[in-house]
């Protein structure tokens, strides 16, 4: 009975900040043996940071550690790596598969923990010269798969497996980690969105496997955006938002609507008043039909969307559902297909130039990768696109046969935006990589503004920048829209941000538009859309 008293895992007063930015605030919870805890929350709510603390990831230590205590079976622990955590019987199944495609399931399950047959060579050249014990490898793999209660061919190569089997292989790997008896048996398993990539049927069999594991006394922390699954499988659930635990209750009696509300609901503290803009009578400027985009991790399957002239449209949704794929696909950065009509003309997809020529512009979410020439000056960054697409800032000689960069014009325009957007830099000649994230974002905006586009896609404009810069970036977008009437499509994971600035918000789930609502609608409606629940009054 004492077991019941001392929880398997207890996290006490956990707090964590990244250079002043508080991401976790006084987190307290515990989990018992055999308990399945559902953990839900929006992106950036602090779930993954919490898990990183539990596993002692490098990232936490290099950014100044954390506050509070992690207690396992009454003993305060401080892991230095996930291998340490494993020794105490805590394993994790990551969202991205960490499997070797050319290895069989069994080989992947025992990776780097293979049972060996001793050989003479190992005395001379070290343990790694021992040969593998294939029979035992197979046996270990089979036992851990049995624990899951599923059938899986252990000799099948991962590359030829269906996704569901890959996921099972991952879990079986965690379960097998005590097989050599060198570590404690697995007692706690963290599953980070294991069902995100699975089909419904596959997900069901995973849930069954989870319940089976729980019966064997293994506790689990189950992170998922599919709330129905949480309700189906969990004993207790915990909702996180803004680095706080909002709710931590037994699952009984909880319904999906409640969870959705807890997830997105925010104390009403919207300082900026919603915009007054009537989009209904405006003409359609951009018409997307049946768009698919092959963007890894953000696949768009079938999106149809109309954007009205002069509006600010928000596109929201959970990470990985495909909202980022929409602008990236339309702008030709990833392979895409479908039909896109802009201003009455059908656009040529997969050709960034034709889209820029048509008057579209895009501020990418990947600032360092796509948005900037990090090794070049701010002037280059601001002026480059406009120069290439619209022949601005060029001096022409010999009837345009010879062109020459007009450094004076470039400097002027850069200086203009530096002043306008309050970009902090030593001069317009500074290299882009030397700026802070927020200022880099402003440079990206300046680059797009210099194009004077008719429609501007802005993707995750506030990701990774501090609060002051956030407000400024959003305000400059609004101002730009107000003064020039430019249509703006903002894609963001932060719903509140969208609600503050947009006229309408489309929610993308599973590569499709789940629904479009006016920004003034209550946030739980959006929450429901995000988890794939249609709301009647969706437009």
């Amino acid at each position, binding site marked *: 009975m004492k077991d019941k008293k001392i929880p398997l895992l207890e996290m006490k007063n956990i707090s964590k900040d990244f250079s002043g930015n508080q991401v976790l605030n006084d987190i307290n919870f515990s989990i018992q043996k055999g308990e399945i805890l559902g953990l839900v929350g929006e992106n950036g709510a602090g779930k993954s940071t919490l898990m990183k603390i539990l596993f002692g990831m490098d990232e936490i230590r290099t950014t100044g550690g954390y506050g509070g205590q992690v207690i396992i079976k009454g003993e305060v622990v401080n892991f230095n790596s996930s*291998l340490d955590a494993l020794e105490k019987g805590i394993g994790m199944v990551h969202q991205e598969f*960490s*499997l*070797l*495609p*050319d*290895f069989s399931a069994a*080989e992947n399950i025992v*990776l*780097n923990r*293979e049972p*060996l047959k001793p*050989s003479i*060579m190992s005395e001379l050249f070290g*343990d*790694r*010269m*021992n*040969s*593998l014990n294939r029979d035992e490898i197979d046996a270990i793999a089979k036992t851990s798969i049995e624990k899951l209660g599923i059938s899986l061919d252990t000799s099948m190569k991962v590359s030829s497996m269906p996704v569901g089997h890959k996921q099972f292989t991952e879990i079986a790997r965690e379960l097998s980690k005590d097989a050599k008896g060198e570590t404690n048996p697995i007692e706690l398993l963290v599953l980070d969105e294991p069902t995100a990539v699975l089909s419904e049927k596959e997900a069901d069999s995973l849930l069954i496997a989870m319940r089976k594991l729980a019966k064997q006394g293994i506790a689990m922390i189950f992170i998922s955006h599919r709330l129905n699954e949480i309700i189906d499988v969990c004993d207790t659930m915990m909702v996180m938002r803004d680095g706080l635990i909002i709710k931590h209750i037994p699952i009984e009696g909880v319904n999906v609507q409640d969870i959705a509300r807890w997830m997105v609901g925010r104390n009403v503290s919207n300082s900026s008043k919603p915009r007054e803009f009537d989009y209904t009578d405006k003409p359609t400027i951009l018409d997307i039909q*049946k768009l*698919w*985009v*092959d963007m*890894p991790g953000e*696949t768009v*399957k*079938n999106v149809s969307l109309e954007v009205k002239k002069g509006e600010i449209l928000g596109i929201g949704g959970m990470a990985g559902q495909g909202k980022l794929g929409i602008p990236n696909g339309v702008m030709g950065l990833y*392979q895409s*297909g*479908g039909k896109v009509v802009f201003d009455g003309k059908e656009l040529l997809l997969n050709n960034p130039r034709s889209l820029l020529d048509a008057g579209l512009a895009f501020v990418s979410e990947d600032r360092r990768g796509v948005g900037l020439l990090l090794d070049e000056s701010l002037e280059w960054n601001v002026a480059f696109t406009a120069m290439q697409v619209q022949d601005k800032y060029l001096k022409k000689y010999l009837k345009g046969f010879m062109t020459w960069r007009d450094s004076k014009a470039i400097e002027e325009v850069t200086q203009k935006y530096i002043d306008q957007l309050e970009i902090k830099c030593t001069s317009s000649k500074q290299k882009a990589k030397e700026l802070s994230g927020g200022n880099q974002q402003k440079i990206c905006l300046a680059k797009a503004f210099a194009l004077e586009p008719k429609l501007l896609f802005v993707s995750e404009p506030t990701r990774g920048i501090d609060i002051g810069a956030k407000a400024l970036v959003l305000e400059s977008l609004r101002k730009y829209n107000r003064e020039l009437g430019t249509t703006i499509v903002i894609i963001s994971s932060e719903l509140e941000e969208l609600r503050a600035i947009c006229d309408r918000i489309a929610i993308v789930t599973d590569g499709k538009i789940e629904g479009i609502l006016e920004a003034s609608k209550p946030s739980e409606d959006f929450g429901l859309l995000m988890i794939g629940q249609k709301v009647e009054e969706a437009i």
Partner: protein
Amino acid sequence: MKKITSKGIKSLIRNNLVTVLFLVICSIGIPLSGYSPSYLISEIIVRLSRNSFLILSLLIPIMAGMGLNFGMTLGAMAGQIGLIFVTDWNVVGIPAMVLAIIISIPISILLGQLCGRILNKAKGREMVTSYILGFFMNGVYQLIVLYGMGSIIPIKNTSLVLPRGYGIRNTVNLIGIRRSLDSLFNLSIFGIKIPLMTFIVIALVCVFIVWFRKTKLGQDMRAVGQDMEVAASAGIQVEHTRIVSIVISTVVAGIGMIIYLQNIGTLNTYNSHTQIGMFSVAALLVGGASVSKANIGNVFLGVILFHLMFIVSPMAGKNLIGQAQLGEYFRVFVSYGVITMSLVLYEMRKKRENLANAEKLQENQGALNED
């Protein structure tokens, strides 16, 4: 039963384009050259015994995902240094070979360590780096052999040293160990001599490689070769594993060079090793290997096809156009061309695989539209 369809054959050809091309070249070249089959077979057997060992040294780095180890020339240098010493000490026969191998191994290990460390700093461009490293170490080798030997490193055999008093001569006569391994057990079938002992040694390396694949280290190398990050997250020492694979390759190449030179009988002190890397790589690629995949079968098939081309082309060139020189240039062209082509095909295949996903989505969309 698998049904052989025309599509299957097409993909077979596409995946083994280089090999197929070589089959065509050889089948045109052999009749043109006018060589008798028995001559060709005996030549091929000589080449097999001479070169297989060297080429086998390339397999392990490929397994570890490091591509073709052009740095095998480092091993060749180590082997040559071993041979220079035994020649100087006037040791002959099989004992001399064994001694040369024992001398070469520590040098190979040292050079392999160096090579591995450098390649770890140049992940993603191992091949070009190992290639340049071969050139760089050639300079160091010259420094040692041309200036160090006979002055700092004592060489007492005056017939080895240049007239000026130090530095090894351009050619070293290996009369003492010439064919000592090849002629240990000789088998003669239809007048074709088969150096049985050499083949036994080669078979032993093959067995070693097969066994090595089944060891923990071999498994780790395969894991590292597939995905360094996954391997690292499972706790495999990626960098160390990569270094070990290069060390093994260098050691095997060193031994291979000694076997190669005992067959040739003379050592071109400053040239023998420079060409070895290129020819070995070319032969392996001809055998159907790629930058990321190679097996023992590729080695032997490669040696046979590549050297068949090598033997017949001067004669074929002479009979065709009356210029043997042309055939010689042709085979040089083909050797380089083969490597170029394989590398290009490999990169293109990599790209094609990336595009496969988009095609899948498109099909998906097509299905949606039909609904």
